[in-house]
């Protein structure tokens, strides 16, 4: 199963993850 998030955010939004990285519920995905 997969979850796709699509969202609008300011252009200074930055992801806090890397491709292939394991992640858990509640961990930061990104921030402005």
């Amino acid at each position, binding site marked *: 199963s997969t979850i*796709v998030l699509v969202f609008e955010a300011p252009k200074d939004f930055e992801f806090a993850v890397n491709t292939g990285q394991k992640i858990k519920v509640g961990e930061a995905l990104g921030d402005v």
Partner: protein
Amino acid sequence: LLSTWRETPTQWYPLPVALGALLLIVIQYRRRVLEKEVHVDEGGHEVVRLKGPWTVHVLGALPLRNLSRLWGYLNSLELPIWLRPAGFRLYAWIFGCNLSEMDPEDLTQYASLGDFFYRKLKNGARPVADSILVSPADGKILHFGTIRNGRVEQIKGSTYSLDALLGVERPGSSQPTDVEFPKRDMDEVNDRHFADINGIEYSLHQLLGTHAPPSPTASGTTTPTHETPSTPNSQPGVHRDMEDNVPTPVARKHGEQIDASVPSDVSLPEQVSHDAEVAAEMGMRPFLDRAQRRPSMSVKPGNALYFVVIYLAPGDYHRFHSPAAWVVEKRRHFVGDLFSVSPWMVRRLENLFVLNERVALLGRWRYGFFGMVPVGATNVGSIKINFDQALRTNVGSRKPPPTGTFTEAVYAAASPVLRGQPLTKAQEIGGFCLG
């Protein structure tokens, strides 16, 4: 025949090199042209088709949906208590589950593998980061980035359409207000208490939010799990669950939308002040005008559209949570195939995420549009949304509709203030079930 086979001489001769080269060029040209070819329907919307190597086409020929439901049935069978600890420990060892964070930890309390798969976590097992966007699930980041020209990158060099992923309003479909229920369907409702509209069964209570006289359930229809209680908050288009008092939406089929919004003359319940507080916490304006309330994928100046894809492996915790504080205004259920969504398949099957069955939750957050799309797979075809009791995924016995069509429900009646289903960051939304 035997003598002919034995006595006919075989003569070998070389093919002209130029002819072979020409053949290769033609094959390559045809392949490139076909790859770039985009099929569109009468409305100009892209029609997604199965594309990929021969292995993908072989998988596409399998009855994946039936296999998925069979898998779900087998895993719903109750296991003997003596077998549960050893069986679940073996599963946990193979797929790397952390048994110490489950609630409850006692393995004998999980009646089946399906129960174990949909396990809960202990309170505090997942601390929530102080960030505007957090992970909705345990898993692996497959891909992330910016959406350009309405295309989402599946892998490097391969994209799929954002419209195909989330769905678009089709010609003939109206907005969820001021729409009359079709006369043909009203006849069916009167006759049977349940209506079967274009392949979707509706409970009359859920459909209209009114009290219908009790009548026998027609054969081949479902039985409602809850009756609509008579409460001061009962409103047209709203069905409140008796157990958890969660409002469920009114389902509507493409082009047959039904008003699920709260009429202006209905007195607002006490929930209004609470919702206003939630709105303030989210940085949103309550009572937005209708144009602002609708999810829109046109971004504001200074903003951009982003995406992230998270893959949940078989051993992962399979409930999903809200990635941010936002309001879900509608959901679109796309009935599709149920291919595996493993990274191996993602690399091979183009348009995988717009071919599979999925539920698109669309709404808004403090920066504008927000969408969350749980995508099913062969082993986990069932998607649950806690605040949407009407949603049924991976349902058999009916011919699936064409790829790209969807059924839609609006949550406008869930909160009179926010005109949608408000969710706080890390709040549990639902999950994936086996089969």
